[in-house]
């Protein structure tokens, strides 16, 4: 046993290249950001002024910061449920006896591979009075004006629709993979015993995919906190901060307005929340 351990105790050299890279790029940046968050700096002047925790106290009084947090929570709660429900249902249907499964799989997954930067102009058009939705409503004589992206009450929901469109493919492919490992005979036995489809899905298939759901929850929490491209490119966080997320606010404060110290404090906050979120979902997974 001792000899075997000594033979196998050689893993360090295999992970070091990756860690060297992560430390230079990521941990250096985290350290830099921590340090910068206690400074006042505009990015140009040669000296930084140390201000202690002033950026943090400013943050907790900043209404836009709280608005961004609220948006992130609403956004996560709704997109997580809708996207994974759709992904799960698609996976169940495509594991059944249906025609043209590959065509459907590809159509569902293609949105995931397309760049938000590529699709942003499309969605700006689609959800504008010049887009196809408006043409449809006009054609059907339904008196609705498609100006939802310019209204603070609706803009966030439009972004959620876009995000669900984009990421259902990811939920689908992971559930699809998980379902191929579920024991088919057990399902058939339950169905022969008279259990309906909905019931087997809910009481047998869904619990069987629990690991996938937890993984998706963890990726979802991190993803919601990281959200940047879609709100930035489609609404730039507006109107009136209605679609502001921490990412877009950090960009606004740091890059646009050169409040680099304040942006760094927001970044630290974002990182802390992401780590805590990932830790809690990971723990929920293990504590079953």
């Amino acid at each position, binding site marked *: 046993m001792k000899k075997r351990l000594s*033979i*196998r*105790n*050689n*893993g*360090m050299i*295999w*992970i070091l*290249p*990756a*860690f060297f*890279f*992560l430390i*230079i*790029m*990521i941990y250096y*940046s*985290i350290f*830099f950001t921590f340090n*910068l968050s206690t400074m006042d700096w505009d990015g140009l002047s040669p000296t930084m002024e140390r201000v202690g925790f002033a950026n943090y106290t400013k943050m907790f009084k900043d209404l836009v910061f709280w608005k961004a947090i609220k948006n992130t929570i609403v956004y996560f709660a709704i997109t997580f449920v809708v996207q994974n429900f759709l992904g799960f249902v698609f996976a169940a*249907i495509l*594991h*059944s006896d249906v*025609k043209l499964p590959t065509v459907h*799989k590809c*159509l*569902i997954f*293609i949105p995931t*591979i*397309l*760049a*938000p930067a*590529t699709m942003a*102009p*499309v969605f700006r*058009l*689609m959800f504008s009075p010049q887009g*196809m939705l408006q043409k449809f409503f006009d054609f059907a004589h339904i008196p609705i004006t498609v100006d939802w992206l310019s209204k603070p009450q609706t803009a966030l929901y439009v972004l959620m629709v876009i995000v669900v469109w984009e990421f259902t493919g990811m939920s689908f*492919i992971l559930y*699809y*993979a998980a*379902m191929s*490992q579920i024991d088919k005979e057990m399902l058939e036995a339950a169905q022969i015993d008279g259990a309906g489809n909905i019931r087997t*899905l809910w009481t047998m298939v869904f619990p069987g995919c629990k*690991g996938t759901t937890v*993984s998706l929850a963890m990726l979802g929490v*991190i993803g919601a*906190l*990281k959200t*940047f491209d879609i709100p930035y*490119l489609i609404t730039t966080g507006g109107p009136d901060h209605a679609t502001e997320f921490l*990412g877009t606010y*950090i960009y606004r404060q740091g*890059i646009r307005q050169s409040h680099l110290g304040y*942006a760094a404090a927001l*970044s630290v906050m*974002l*990182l802390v929340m*992401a*780590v805590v979120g990932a830790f809690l979902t990971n723990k929920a997974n293990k504590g079953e």
Partner: protein
Amino acid sequence: MLRIKSKRKKILLQILLFVMTVPYLLPLLQMFLGSLGGRGFYNYVAVWNTGVVPTYFRNSIIISAGVILIVYVLSMTAGFGFAKLNILGKEAFFWLILVALTLPEVILLTPLFVTFQRMHLFSTFFSVIFPLAALQLPFTILLIRNFDAGIPSELMEAAKIDGATTSQAFLHVILPLTKPIGSAVAMLTLINSWNSYLLPLLFLQKPSMQTVTLLPQYFQGEFTNDQTKILAAAVLTAIPEIVAYLCMQKNFERGMSAGALK
């Protein structure tokens, strides 16, 4: 999965699937129809005639290839180390990866901006390739670790008894078995590096170095905001991605199914 007995229900399920899939197609339809607005196919000619399209594609290919190479090599070795070898303080290293997994791109901007300028790397392809690879690594290391953990250790031990070193066992036993997860990792990395927007926008200042994600903005310049050409540019950017995915679809699916996330 679903048990459908009657012919009528079978048709209903097919219709349900169709109705659920159509919304995923609509934005693509809007993109295509919008790109033909105004002067029709001439929009594509106008986009092509700017002369920047091949350059932007070349730059995106260089960046994606660089990121995939770094990510593939580093996550294959690290994933193997985590799954099959003894490492002192493995738990701690694992947490370092999880923290890195949560890091948003936007946090890296200021630190890397300052550093790259000092190191004279600013506005080189490296200033985009390195951070993209670092952001991708945590996730791919986890995927490969999970995959490698499913490979029976006996296979490696057998190679060792035959006198193979760890490197030889990795190259001749593990690596050939990792093809499915390897193509899933390549595909995910390709998606993320090809689609990256913020880093090229800020770190590649020269027009000759910009990437396909910045192509729509080319027509959103100071003087023009030409919707139809923006959409034509979007279609041109989307087509190679869709073709690449369709080519790799089978392998990608197999990789994800092979216990990618559990």
